């Protein structure tokens, strides 16, 4: 092909080849890169936003917060039952709906101090840690199964050790648990928890290994036994 012919063809297609196509390609590439990297950058942007923002972030549109901390010297209405055990009166407990933030979960030794949600959906795990709604709330006398992301709110679980204290603060009382065991188990291992348990016990878990990206087959479980905190009176019948 002669130089003259080539120049002529370039002239003819110049608009399409050298202006429109590069622009489409540029925007297309940026769009694809944005779609690919936006989730990774969103955490950084959120953190930067929080650091430089003068205002407190308003999460009210994403979830409802019913948590009102119980002060040290406040007294909640209680009832003493036949077993001489004191219970929090049920009508003083605002039982959380799915998705509500209703407390805080604190493990000082692990640097964990997180919002506690009822339900372990996306919104809950994006903002804190969440109780599976097929398990029960603290004080109810059953299994409390709590999930949290390994790269954020439950990253500190890697420092969990036997004997450490876990505190759960709710609007109806503060509960203390002692870590009894940690274990790495398959996510599908159904022996890792017992949702039928008729005694209060706390199970926290996150993906394992801790700093691995993406889906993992394993979970790091932390088991804790109930130490203190006034149980909830489950029945509405009076039993003094």
């Amino acid at each position, binding site marked *: 092909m002669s130089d003259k012919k080539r120049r002529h063809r370039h002239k003819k297609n110049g608009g399409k080849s050298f202006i429109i196509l590069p622009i489409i390609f540029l925007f297309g590439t940026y769009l694809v890169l944005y779609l690919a990297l936006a989730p990774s950058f969103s955490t950084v942007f959120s953190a930067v936003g929080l650091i430089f923002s003068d205002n407190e972030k308003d999460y009210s549109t994403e979830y409802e917060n019913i948590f009102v901390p119980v002060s040290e010297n406040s007294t909640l209405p209680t009832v003493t039952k036949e077993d001489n055990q004191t219970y929090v009166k049920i009508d003083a407990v605002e039982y959380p709906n799915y998705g509500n933030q209703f407390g805080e979960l604190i493990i000082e030794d692990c640097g964990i101090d997180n919002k506690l949600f009822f339900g372990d959906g996306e919104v809950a795990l994006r903002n804190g840690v969440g109780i599976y709604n097929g398990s029960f709330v603290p004080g109810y006398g059953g299994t409390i199964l709590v999930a949290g992301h390994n*790269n954020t709110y439950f990253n500190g679980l890697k420092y969990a050790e036997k004997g450490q204290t876990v505190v759960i603060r709710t609007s109806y009382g503060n509960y203390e648990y002692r870590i009894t065991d940690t274990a790495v188990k398959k996510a599908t291992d159904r022996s890792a928890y017992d949702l*039928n348990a008729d005694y209060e016990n706390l199970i926290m878990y996150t993906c394992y290994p801790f700093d691995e990206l993406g889906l993992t087959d394993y979970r790091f479980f932390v088991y804790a036994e109930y130490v203190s905190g006034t149980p909830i009176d489950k029945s509405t019948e009076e039993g003094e």
Partner: protein
Amino acid sequence: MKKLSAILIALVLVAATAVTAFAAGINSSEQAVLDELKTSVAMKDGEMVIPTEYVNQAENYFNTIEMTEAQSKDIIAIIEDGKKFLANSGASNISDLTFAQKQELLGYGKKVVGVLDMTMSYDKTTKKLTIFDPNGEVAFSATPYLTKTGAIAENPIKTTGSDINYFGFIALGAAAVVLVAGGTMFVVKTKKERA
């Protein structure tokens, strides 16, 4: 004046000592429904029950409402009818039911939740049954399934790894392929033209 002062003081005292009461706890009507949910149904391969975690979810929901005795009786009657239907269906589990049978079972479910002003829908694609509370909020969402006594139907363990976007990776990969292919084509074409 004295009377007015007394009334005002009384009002202030009442306000100061008032404790907010919530519609919580499991009353006898709710307990009766929970007991009914825990009883088994005789199906083709033996006794089947609603999985533990589903009953727990019902218990958690009942803690947020106040069920009347009449509502409880209505619900139990519908559940009993539903169980009879399942027992006579000839199926081993809900998934084995024919389409028409599934529709009929869904009808029982809708009647049950309707007593509490709730609604129910089934998504054929995800095979998830969703129950909405009277405010339209999701109260329950899971695959309808029955298990042998004590078993759990769905794995409650969530994906708690990094919040990774697989679509992003696929898109990035596709973009890389397009870029490389485009580049190669350009080089080949240029070489051809120069030749």
